[in-house]
Every structure is written in structure tokens, then in C-alpha cells.
């Protein structure tokens, strides 16, 4: 889009000057988390605030709205909305502005709506409060708003409760609520982070088209450079509570000045950056302090070309997992969730197969079925030539030595009450893999291997950052020298730069230890980096599987194409005018009636090892 023109005549909608926010700590001292932040947003413009987790983005937004706990926080500096100073406004007047002149949407659509009130009421409330409408009038207006944010059958959904809405629809409800009074400024705090790629794309589109219609300004908070490139006219980069760089988005992307900005940009996975290669490749990383490249940047050596067909470490044939849905007086079977349906693939030693697809398409269930964390309904899973499904419990426990799992949430997958050392040692002790002293030795070794020092063994998980924890999880998974690791969204919860580090670590380990990965993710850009082969899942089925280059460069199934198109490109110059936004709100459900007959599946081979589901 056009470069930002400094419009000197128009007063900015929002002018933030020298904003500082501090929190009172337990001991009574103040901790400043936002320091001297200044920026302005002109009418109809979008300003993005980026930065990693904890850099003070949300606090900035909440300070503007004065939504921070009054007794615990102190705000300094000035915030002017259309020239009116907000920081000194009486609370009553401030309340008249909130939701009216400035509106806000939050990161977590699942928790931001009151579960006990109807969707309609929660929107209408704003109208009643600020526009003084009668309930009937507010209701009519609300229905209009719901239609505007493309909620199908808006009239009938007025009286529904939030739990019936998917994440994407709830976020649209939040948007409708924010737009109810046609605010001059919309603050969107990571409104798409919690959503799937395709839903994320739809939501971004919606915000943009509404911005055009209503002519409001947007303050957009995100940590995703791809999203920044997509939406923002101007960008503010925050680092440890301070603005380190500010300017037109295109400028910043083209010519980042601050080392942190550069580090941030270098770590952004860009779709299509791997065109023409077939092997996985490490992320180039830049140190935010020095601005220099951190590690030697050789791509993973060519040895990870597809190996000659050895015996696969993992072979999955017609794997099917269904969950019964029971209802009624005697818990009769009312249907089944066909979470995984006839999934077949194999993984070679040292190979990475990625499973991609939207939330709920059965990726995790596939992974869990392979490890028999859930019992599959049908099919076979062979690890190292042994059938997992036929094993007795004790046998299975032994067999689990050969296959490990890394989970999405590094915070949840470590017992908060066990030291890091005992967490890593536990698998070895359980299997008697080493003597007690041998175990200690090995723990230290493993910690070194994932780039942590030996002394961390005595610490507790809460003393580590998310990235460090994921390293610990990887060390634990490595402890039993597994042949295969299933990584379920192993990097999705991490900040961009950390994400890149972990991906690099996984690649290094694969290279040196010859581990095979089943990499589960919905992040296409990361998948592109890490995988040898890719399987795209939709509604419990694999719809396309093949070498990564083939699938990404020559997607055959419409769903694969849609998935790829939805990924925001971290490049403002390629900002696309969006495909016609789909109004279909939900991913079709995998719930089928009891007597559902699964249709025959047929695959078409489009290239070497590149299969596409037909029909």
C-alpha cells in the first residue's frame, strides 16, 4: 500500500506521549514495565505494536484505556484522544469514552465473553449504555452488527450463549461489540493469535474491511511480523518496555535499524523462503543485542536428502480413532467423533514428517494414537517392526522407550514440583537404563546437548523461560534415545525468536542422532523449514501427502491451497488484497451419526510419493 503520508493538518486520533507504567510489587517498590513510550495514530490509519512476550504491549494498551488495577499501578505521561487528555479524566467521563470512542478486543476470545450472558445481550449492553437505546432498538441494531461481522443467521443467534460459538466466531462477536458505537479508535490486542491460520486470515480481513467502512483508526498489537506486514501502516517495535524503533511498516521491514528489530525479522518464518530446496534448513538468527548473526548459518547438510528406502521406523496403516458420543437416560451411543480416519503413512529413520491442518482435524489424536495414549479403533501402528496395538501394558511401557513425545505447552508438560534433573532422570530410572550415578552423568550430558548448563538440573521449571523449558522437554524426550519423536505443536506456543532456536535445535539433534520426527503443526512456515515430507489433514483424513517441496510448490488438494494462501506473508510489499473472505464460520465437524458409513478413499499419485485424496 502507499507509504504513510504525514498529515500535519489533521490532529491525530490518538497521541501517546512519554507513557510510563509501573506496578507496585509485593514489597511496595515500583517496577516499571512500560517506559517513555510515544506514538500517534492518524485518522483511518493502523499502527502496529510488535515485540516479544512481556515487552509491555498489553500494558500499553490497557494504560491507554485505564483498565489497569488502579491501586497497584501508576501511569505517567499523556494520552490524548482527539486532543482530549485521558490520563487525568474523571473515572465517570472515562467510562463514557470506553466502548464509545475507544473500543478494545482482546487476545483470548474464549475467555473474553461472559459465559452466562447471551451474545446478543453483551453487544446490546454497549448500545444501551452509550447510545441510550431501548432494549428493542438495541436488539435490532445488534442483529445488524452481527450480520455485519458475518455471523450467519444473526437474528436467531442473538439469544445464544458464547460456549456454542467457535473461537473465530467469538472473536467476531468481540469485534461487533467493539464496533457497536462506531469508535474512533479500535485497540486490538493480539486478536488473532489464538486462532487458526484460516480463521486468523478471515478475522484480519474483517477488521480491515470494517476499518475502511467505518473510517476508524486501529492500534494493533501483535508479536507476529507476518500479521504486521499484512495490516499496519506504521509500526512501533517494543523491547523490554521501551520503543526501540518506530516508522512506516514498509520502511521497517525494508531497512530495520535496531538490532532487535533485525533479530525479530530474521526469525520470522517466511513461507516460500525455501523454494527450490528439498532438505530442511535452519533459521538464520541474529543476536538482538549486537545485531550480528548468532550462529554459523549453514543449512542442514544435504545428507538429509531422502534416504534410500530403509525399513521405516514408524509405519501407520489405516489408523482409525473414533470417540463415542453418549447421551440420554442410559448413555446410549448417539454418534461418533471420527477424529482419525484411515490414516496411513510411514517415517524413515532421520526423517521428518509433518502433519498440518486446522484445529480439530485430528493431528494430535493421530500422534496420541501412535503412542497408544488413546486406543485406536482400527488399523496398525508398527514401530521398529513391532505392532504397538498388540502389546500388553508392561510390554507397551517398555516399547515407549523407543518413541517419545514433545508437547505444545512447555509450561504444562513439566511437573512444576519436580526439579529439572529429576524430570530428565525419571525416564532412565523408570526403565533402569542406567545406574544412579550414571543417570546423573547422563542428565548433565543431555542438558548440555540442548544447550543448558549442568547446574540447571537442580532448579524448578518455573525458574525457566518457555524456550528453556521446551529444551528441557526435548532433553527428557532424548533421555531414552528414542528412534522417533512425536512433536505435537512443539513450537507453536513460543515467541518467534525462541521458536526459531528450538527448530534449529531439533534439526541439529536429528542430524547428529538420526531421530525421526512426526512434527505436528498448523504453522505452515515452520513446517516448510523443518520437514522432509508433509501430510495435510482435514477432518481426520490425510488429503495430501508428499515431499515437502512438492506439496508446498505444487499443492493439489483445494484444502492445501487454502491453508497455504491463509498464511500471512511477512512482507508488506506483498500485502495481498484478500481472497473473498469465507463466511463459513466453523470447520466442518467430524461428528458422524452411529450408522455413518465411511466412504472409500482413493489417492491419486501426482508425483514421486506425492499423493492426493480424490473426490
Amino acid at each position, binding site marked *: 500500500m502507499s507509504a504513510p503520508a504525514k498529515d500535519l493538518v489533521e490532529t491525530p486520533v490518538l497521541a501517546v506521549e512519554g507513557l510510563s507504567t509501573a506496578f507496585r510489587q509485593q514489597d511496595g517498590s515500583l517496577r516499571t514495565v512500560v517506559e517513555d513510550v510515544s506514538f500517534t495514530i492518524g485518522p483511518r490509519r493502523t499502527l502496529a505494536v510488535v515485540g516479544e512476550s512481556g515487552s509491555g504491549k498489553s500494558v500499553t494498551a490497557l494504560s491507554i*484505556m485505564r483498565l489497569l488495577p488502579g491501586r497497584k499501578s501508576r501511569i505517567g505521561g499523556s494520552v490524548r484522544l482527539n486532543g482530549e487528555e485521558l490520563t487525568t479524566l474523571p473515572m465517570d467521563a472515562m467510562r463514557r469514552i470506553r*466502548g464509545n470512542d475507544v473500543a478494545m478486543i482482546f487476545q483470548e476470545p474464549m475467555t473474553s465473553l461472559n459465559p452466562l450472558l447471551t451474545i446478543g445481550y453483551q453487544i446490546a*449492553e454497549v448500545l444501551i449504555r452509550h447510545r441510550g437505546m431501548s432494549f428493542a432498538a438495541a436488539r435490532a441494531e445488534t442483529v445488524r452488527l452481527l450480520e455485519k461481522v458475518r455471523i450467519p443467521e444473526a437474528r436467531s443467534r442473538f439469544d445464544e450463549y458464547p460456549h456454542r460459538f467457535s473461537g473465530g466466531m467469538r472473536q467476531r462477536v468481540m469485534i461487533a461489540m467493539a464496533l457497536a458505537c462506531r469508535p474512533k479508535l479500535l485497540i486490538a490486542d493480539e486478536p488473532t493469535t489464538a486462532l487458526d491460520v484460516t480463521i486468523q486470515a478471515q478475522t484480519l480481513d474483517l477488521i480491515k474491511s470494517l476499518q475502511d467502512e467505518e473510517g476508524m483508526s486501529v492500534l494493533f498489537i501483535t508479536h507476529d511480523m507476518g500479521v504486521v506486514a499484512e495490516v499496519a501502516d506504521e509500526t512501533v517495535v517494543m523491547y523490554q518496555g521501551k520503543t526501540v524503533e518506530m516508522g512506516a511498516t514498509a520502511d521497517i521491514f525494508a531497512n530495520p535499524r535496531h538490532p532487535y528489530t533485525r533479530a525479530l525479522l530474521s526469525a520470522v518464518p517466511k513461507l516460500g523462503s525455501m523454494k527450490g530446496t528439498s532438505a530442511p534448513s535452519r533459521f538464520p538468527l541474529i543476536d538482538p543485542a549486537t545485531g550480528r548473526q548468532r550462529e554459523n548459518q549453514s543449512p542442514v547438510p544435504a545428507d538429509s536428502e531422502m534416504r534410500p528406502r530403509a525399513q521405516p521406523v514408524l509405519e501407520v496403516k489405516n489408523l482409525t480413532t473414533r470417540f463415542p458420543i453418549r447421551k440420554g437416560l442410559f448413555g446410549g451411543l448417539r454418534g461418533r467423533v471420527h477424529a482419525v480416519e484411515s490414516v496411513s503413512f510411514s517415517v524413515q529413520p532421520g526423517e521428518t514428517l509433518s502433519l498440518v491442518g486446522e484445529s480439530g482435524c485430528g493431528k494430535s489424536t493421530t500422534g496420541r494414537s501412535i503412542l497408544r495414549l488413546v486406543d485406536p479403533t482400527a488399523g496398525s501402528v508398527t514401530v521398529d517392526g513391532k505392532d504397538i496395538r498388540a502389546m500388553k501394558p508392561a510390554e507397551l511401557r517398555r516399547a515407549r522407550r523407543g518413541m517419545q513425545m514433545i508437547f505444545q505447552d512447555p509450561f504444562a508438560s513439566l511437573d512444576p514440583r519436580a526439579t529439572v534433573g529429576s524430570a530428565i532422570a525419571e525416564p532412565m530410572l523408570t526403565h533402569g537404563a542406567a545406574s544412579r550415578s550414571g543417570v546423573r552423568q547422563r542428565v548433565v550430558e543431555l542438558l548440555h546437548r540442548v544447550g543448558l548448563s549442568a547446574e540447571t538440573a537442580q532448579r524448578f521449571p518455573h525458574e525457566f523461560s518457555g524456550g528453556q523449558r521446551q529444551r528441557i522437554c526435548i532433553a527428557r524426550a532424548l533421555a531414552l534415545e528414542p528412534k522417533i519423536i512425536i512433536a505435537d505443536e512443539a513450537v507453536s506456543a513460543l515467541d518467534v525468536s525462541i521458536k526459531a532456536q528450538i527448530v534449529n535445535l531439533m534439526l541439529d539433534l536429528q542430524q547428529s542422532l538420526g531421530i525421526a520426527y512426526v512434527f505436528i503443526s498448523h504453522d505452515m512456515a515452520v513446517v516448510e523449514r523443518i520437514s522432509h515430507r508433509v501430510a495435510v489433514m482435514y477432518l481426520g483424513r490425510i488429503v495430501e501427502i508428499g515431499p515437502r517441496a512438492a506439496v508446498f510448490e505444487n499443492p493439489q488438494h483445494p484444502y492445501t491451497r487454502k491453508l497455504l494462501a491463509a498464511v500471512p506473508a511477512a512482507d508488506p510489499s506483498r500485502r495481498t488484497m484478500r481472497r473473498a473472505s469465507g463466511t463459513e464460520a466453523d470447520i466442518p465437524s467430524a461428528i458422524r451419526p452411529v450408522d455413518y458409513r465411511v466412504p472409500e478413499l482413493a489417492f491419486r499419485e501426482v508425483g514421486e510419493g506425492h499423493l492426493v485424496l480424490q473426490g
Partner: protein
Amino acid sequence: MIGYVVRRVLQMIPVLFGITLVVFVLLRASGDPVSLMLGEEASEAQIAQLREAYGLDRPLYEQYAVYMGDLLTGDFGRSIRYNNQPALEVVLERLPATASLAAMALVYAILISLPAGIIAALYRRRIPDQIASFLSVLGQAMPNFWLGIMLILVFAIWFGWFPVSGREDAYAVVLPGLALGASLAAVLTRLLRSSMIEVLSQDYIRTARAKGIGPTAVMLRHAIRNALLSYLTVIGLEASSLMAGAVVTEQVFAWPGIGLLAIQAINSRDMAVVQTIVILAALIVMLVNLLVDVLYSLIDPRIQHV
């Protein structure tokens, strides 16, 4: 929903069965109604005679079988203490007294805990919170018989505002209700305070505030309903302790309810009456819990019982 209710009611049957068995064995093992009835002047021959007359000389399992057989035909047995009156009749005629006492206690508990809990949460760690906390601690630390005696002394004897005991006039329920309700009020206050604090930290409260809704409206329309969910559950759970507390309270206030009957029935090993009370009480407790669950699902659209 109806299916759910039916299922829940059906589930009560084994529980009730278990209760009758436990109570039967315990009571039979612990004492003999005949020697109790006869007192210190009884002769041994006489005890043996009476025991035979009541069928108490038969083996325990046989007695239980007979009892259960009768129970299935709706016969709850006869009270030994009350000259062979039908036990069910003896118990049922007491039900209104205990019900009104419990209802009064509940009313107090709610009237006290609702404002107190909310204010404590709003003024967290400040004076009003501390006062509420202290009072609720006091409420929990004071055995209800003790509170009852104090209430009688102050409000009935010194001030003469209320009758000392009995349930003759309408005001009579005021003091025993308070004595019984105090500890529940204390528990509920503490609970409401903590769930209120939790709710107030939820994202949707921030959303509501971001909409420009004033603090009172946020409180009334957004926070309280959510906080009431756990409040309701606890009321259900406390139904049973309310029944238990009634035993003591009724004793203090000579309140002719089931609690008073229970003590005396246990003390005289009046099997049929104790059994009937326990069955009835358990049934009430379970029905209250069912009611709470149903109410819960009415308030919380996320819960759907099918």
C-alpha cells in the same frame, strides 16, 4: 433434562439401600431398645420376654430382611419408644418444624453472606474485608449450641424480644434460625468472597469494563452470576450439615423437629424412627443436591444435562 433427573433419582436407590444397611447394623450392634426402655428397675427375665416380643432375639440378617421387606411395601416400621406409632408418621409430623428452621437458617445465611461476601471481595484486604473475615471466622469458630444459648440469654431473657424456646408463635423461629444459620453464613461469606475475587480477575470482566460499564453494573450483571455458581453448589453440599446442625440447635431451643427426635431416637435405639429419619434426611440431601444441579444448569448455559 427429564431423563437426567430420572437417572439421578434412580441412582439414589442404591445409596439409600447402603444407608439403611449401615445404620441398621450400627444401631443394632450398639444397644438394645428393650433394656433402655425398661430402665434401671428392669428384671432380666422381663428383658428377655420383651425382646422376644419385638423379634429382637432373631439373627441380625433376619431382622434386616424383615425390615427391608416391610420397607419395600412402604412400611417404615413402628416406633418402639412411641408406643408402636408408625415411624413414618412420627417423623413426618416433625418435618415442618425442621423445614422452617432450615429455611430460616438459609435465609439468614444468604442475607448475611451475599452482601458481606461481595463487599469483602470488593474491598479486598481493606478494612471492610477484614471485618467480614473476622466475623466469619467467629461464626465458624463458635459452636452453634453456644451461639444459641447466648442468643436466648440476650434477646429472649434480657430484652424479651423473642420467646425463649418452642415454636408457638411466628417470631419463635428467629433465634434458632440465626443460631443454625450463622456458621453457614460464615462459610458462604468466605466462599463468595473468594469466588468473587476469582471472577473479578476474569477476562470477561475486563471486557465489560472496556465497554464502559460502570462498576455497579459490572458487579450486578457480570460478576455476581458467575460467582453464584460455586455458591450454589456449596449451599447444596451444606444441606447435609444444616440437617446435622439442626440436631444441636433443636436441642437448645426445644424446637420439636427432626433433630430433637433423632437424638432421642438414637438414645433409645428406636430403630424404625432412626432409620426413617436417616432415609428421609438422605433423600432430602440428595434431592437438594439434585435441585442445585438443575438450578446450576439453568444458570450456566454451558452445562447441559441430557
